[in-house]
C-alpha cells in the first residue's frame, strides 16, 4: 500500500492507503475527501478533481499531458503545481504524496 495525504481546503488531513495503479482521484472519492467532485468519473473530461501537488512532490509526480493541460483551463485558480487527480496514477515512488484540495472545483 502507498500512503497518500489529502489536505482539504479547511486544513483537515486525510491519510489514506492507496493501491498502486489506482488514481489519486479514486482514492479521494473512496475516502470521501471533501472538495473532489470528479463529475465525469475519471475520463479527464471535466476538471472537477483538481488538486495542488505539494511542492516537494511536483518533480516526482510530473507534468500534465496535453489533454490534461487543456482540461485544466476549466479549473479554478490554476497554479503551476495544479493537476487533475484522475490523471495521477499511484505507484511506489509516490509513497507519502501530499496533495491539497482547492477552495472550489470550477
Amino acid at each position: 500500500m502507498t500512503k497518500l495525504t489529502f489536505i482539504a481546503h479547511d486544513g483537515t488531513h486525510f491519510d489514506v492507503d492507496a493501491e498502486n495503479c489506482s488514481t489519486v482521484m479514486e482514492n479521494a472519492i473512496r475516502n470521501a475527501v471533501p472538495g473532489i467532485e470528479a463529475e465525469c468519473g475519471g475520463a479527464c473530461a471535466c476538471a472537477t478533481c483538481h488538486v495542488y501537488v505539494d511542492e516537494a512532490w511536483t518533480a516526482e509526480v510530473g507534468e500534465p499531458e496535453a489533454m490534461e493541460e487543456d482540461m485544466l483551463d476549466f479549473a479554478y485558480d490554476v497554479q503551476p503545481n495544479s493537476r487533475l487527480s484522475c490523471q495521477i496514477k499511484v505507484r511506489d515512488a509516490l509513497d507519502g504524496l501530499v496533495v491539497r484540495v482547492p477552495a472550489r472545483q470550477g
Partner: protein
Amino acid sequence: MTAITKTDVLIVGAGPVGLFAVFELGLFDMKCHLIDILDRPGGQCAELYPEKPIYDIPGWPSISAQGLVDKLLEQIAPFKPEFTYNRMVSSLERLEDGSFRVTTDENEVFEAKIVVIAAGGGSFQPKRPPIPGIEPYEGKSVFYSVRRMEDFRGHDLVIVGGGDSALDWTLNLQPVAKSVTLVHRRPEFRAAPDSVNKMYAMQEMKQLEFQVGQVTGLTGSDGQLASATIKGPEGDVEVPCTRMLPFFGLTMKLGPIAEWGLNLHENLIPVDTEKFQTSVPGIFAVGDINWYPGKLKLILSGFHEVALMAQAAKRIISPGERIVFQYTTSSTSLQKKLGVVD
C-alpha cells in the same frame, strides 16, 4: 399561436438511457419525442467522452461511448423517434385530461401523455468562471454566449478562454467591438491552429490584445462592468472591460426540472423500483437522474429501468388493456414493429 407538438411520450434527455427508452416504449406502440440541450444525441457519452471505451455494456466487451450511441440510434430507428435539440425544458403543467404540457426555453410547446426524465446529471450549461464577484454582472455585461453581435458594438470586450468558442468570437467580434482583449491561462490553445494564427496576426497589427493570465477581479457598478484585472506572469494588469465573454466549458445542472413540483433528494429524483415513477403519476425518471435505495449510476441499470418504466407507461396510456409479455426473439408482432419481418 405556437404550434403544439403532440406525442405519446416526451423524453427529456437524449443520452443512452433516453434513447433506449424509445425502444422499450416503441415495443408497446408508444411514440416518442426527445428534447436535449445539446445539438446532437448521446448526452454525456457524446459530450464528455465519445472516444473512451465502456467495458460494462452486456454483450460488448469494449465499445466506445460514441459507438454505443450510434448503435442505440440504429436500434431505435424503426420506431421513428423525433428529436428537438439545443433546447432546455423550462415549465411543465398538468392539463385537465391528465396529460402534460411542457414548454422549452424557446417557447416551443409539447403535449404528452407521459413524461420521462432521462436527464442524466442535468442539462449542460456554461460553467461560471472562477472570478470573484462575477454574479451581479451576468446577463447584463457578462455573457456566456453571443446571441446578437450588435450587443457588443462599441464595447471594450474581454474574452476569456482558449478553445474554439473563445478564438472564433475574438476574430468575429474584433471588427464590431471598440477593443478586444483575449485572456488565456497559457500561450497554448485548444482552438484550431488557423484561428490562433489569425489571432496572433491581428495582435501583431495591434487590432487586438492577447494577455496570458487569469482574470482575478472586476470593477463596475449596477451590473455594468468597467474594468477587469488580469493576473499574468508579470503581475496584475488592469484592462478596460465593458463586456465579457467567458468560455469555461460546460457543467451539468438540474435546472428548471427542480421547479416541477417533484420530490427531490439531493438534486436527484426519487422513484419507486417497480415503475420508476416520480412523486407525480405519469412522470417517470430513469438513468443517472433518479434515486432509489441501492441506485447505481450505470448505463446498464438505466436500460433495466426503462424496460420496467415502459410497462407502467403503457398501463397509463391504454388503461384496461391486457399487457402481454413477449420476447423479441419469438414474437412476430414485436418483430413487425422492429421491421425485421413483413
